[in-house]
């Protein structure tokens, strides 16, 4: 009897959170999955079951493959660089240096700014001829480059913006983790005559691993989730050179109102991310903890 009340209590406590999760996460996800098997309803052509038709159409669409490739490069560009930078910045501002608070704040500022504002600032940086970057490079002799208007550089440019925005955020986690490391470890290492690099490599880095896993998972998700700056800076152009998966989904769903295709592509993205998260937790978690 007592156990039963405990169970009921437990479920009751869980209920509000579960209700919201189900309403805003699980139900839409299932709805999307169902929609992805149906054609887009039009007033004169009601929705019809078409099995894997939407998926077939997406795999035949060259822009999907381009968006996927772009997104992989975007991930390769943002994940390691922003994590590395975050770690470096955290190590630096963890030291006792003059103006530490100021530097910490400076590193964290990009995170506080809304992405739309960030994108507009960077839009000015990249403007040819009189943008900040052009003026700066002008000091070293003439150099003219249309950063966002060329297929060769546009993707790199939006990748840099994402790194700039993200690194400060990850730095906070590393900073918190660094401060958890007992100072006695540092003292012991100093007594033993360990170099700073050696201390970082053999003590700090392994102790930071759980944080790295957490940050890695977040960085991967962000690499597929951050598209605000694409909307502001390039709208996926030139000629789809900066089209990322989520941006393409938005375009299909809210530009072309093709909800069937957009649903199918959402399911593909969800499955992909789910697999990655699963891999991260099953394979990496075992090696994460310092033994």
């Amino acid at each position: 009897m007592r156990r039963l009340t405990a169970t009921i209590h437990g479920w009751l406590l869980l209920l509000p959170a579960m209700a919201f999760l189900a309403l805003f996460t699980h139900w839409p996800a299932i709805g999307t999955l169902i929609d992805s098997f149906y054609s887009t309803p039009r007033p004169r052509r009601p929705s019809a079951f078409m099995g894997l038709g939407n998926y077939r159409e997406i795999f035949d669409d060259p822009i999907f493959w381009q968006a996927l490739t772009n997104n992989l490069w975007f991930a390769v560009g943002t994940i390691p660089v922003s994590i590395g930078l975050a770690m470096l910045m955290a190590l630096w501002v963890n030291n006792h240096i003059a103006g530490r608070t100021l530097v910490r704040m400076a590193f964290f500022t990009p995170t506080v700014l809304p992405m739309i504002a960030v994108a507009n600032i960077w839009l000015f940086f990249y403007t040819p001829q009189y943008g900040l970057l052009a003026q700066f490079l002008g000091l070293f002799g003439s150099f003219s480059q249309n950063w966002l208007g060329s297929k060769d550089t546009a993707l790199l440019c939006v990748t840099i913006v994402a790194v700039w925005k993200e690194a400060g955020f990850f730095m906070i986690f590393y900073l918190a983790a660094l401060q958890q490391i007992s100072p006695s470890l540092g003292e012991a290492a100093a007594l033993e005559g360990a170099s700073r690099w050696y201390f970082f490599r053999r003590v700090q880095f392994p102790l930071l691993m759980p944080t790295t896993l957490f940050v890695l998972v977040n960085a991967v998700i962000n690499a597929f989730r951050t598209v605000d700056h694409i909307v502001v800076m390039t709208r996926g152009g030139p000629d789809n050179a900066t089209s990322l998966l989520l941006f393409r989904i938005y375009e299909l769903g809210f530009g072309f109102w093709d909800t069937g295709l957009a649903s199918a592509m959402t399911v593909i993205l969800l499955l992909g991310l789910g697999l990655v998260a699963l891999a991260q937790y099953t394979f990496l978690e075992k090696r994460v903890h310092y033994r």
Partner: protein
Amino acid sequence: MKRREFLKGTAAVAGTATIASPAISQTPTELTFYYPVAVGGPITKLVDTLAAEFEKENAGIKVKPVYAGTYQETLVKLITAHKSGGAPALSVVLSTDMFTLIDDDVIVAFDDFVKTDDDKKWLQSFFPAFMENSQTGGKTWGAPFQRSTVVLYWNKELFKETGLDPEKAPASWAEQLAFAEKLTKVDASGTATQWGVQVPSTGFPYWLFQGFSTQAGAILMNQEGNRTFFDKPEVIEALTYWVDLSRKHKVHPPGIVEWGTTPKDFFEKKVAMMWTTTGNLTNVRNNAKFPFGVAMLPAGKRRGSPTGGGNFHISSKAPKEQQEAAFRFARWCTMPERAAQWCVDTGYVAVRKDAFDTPVLKKYVSDFPAAAVARDQLEFAVAELSTHENQRVTKALNDGLQAALTGTKTPVQAMKDSQAEAERILVRYR
């Protein structure tokens, strides 16, 4: 909103208990109105003024203007609201989205509301060039409001410095190229410090391209909106001319040129001639620190420019009395005096001929002759590219244009690919 007012009303009644509710019997019709902002200037303030003045003259109607973002965002909000059942009775979206709105049953035709002779006269008062994107299948689906065309702005100071006649804009493609070659300045290391001409190509390159293609004598789509002609030789000729300006003659910035910063490039004297919307006229007038001129686009085989900009549309799902109110407001906004004032305030072309006979606009044009250029160009204007599944088809063209401008495809290949994609999309609408 309605519910909140109702609650407020109930609270008031509960509080005072004895007062009956006379307000309920004469609730004014509330008209929600979505509009976008696509050019510089205090547009939101101007729209609020319009709404307030209309309310003063029409006691039974309350207008609630809602700024809804860019044209694209306004369309998204309109269709989303329509699908969830709360569509605003009136909205301003791109005239080219007409087919999309009809296909999704989002709007009703204006013809159902035209009853009196005055109404009929009103419907016929617009410039015919603006009606091409507002009518199909014998019905009128949109009322022109903030309409524009593409014009050429030139910096008279830079013209003078170069030894060109500062009062003479290029009249033909050959002149445009010749002027631009003179106006392009290159420093010792071979980097351009000032470009001759600039035509923006982000966001909606197809619209500016339609200037070139019309001048080359091409028409991009049929009136039914179910066929495009992107791979015709004239179209390819037009694209080749544009691409050559930057890649061959090096008088135009390379790659994709940002739409939003083009006026700024012009103010900073980084470019001597720019193509942009007449909607930027007031913006340029206020911000250019040098004398500038406005001209029709140079002619190829002929003069030509697409029209552009937004129309009023009435939602199909709004209650009847709101639709009527929407019709009255749209009509009121496009009366000659108001159309004239809107033209003066924003730089958009007044949508009807008789607006140019009003004292307001007469005075404006005599002080500032540039304002009449867009009107005079309307004679050569064609409908903006608009088809079924418009967003998808224009994207097919945009991708091709950007591929050619960045040099990843030849103009021929780019237009062939665009046409093939458009064909794939449109075949089911025939």
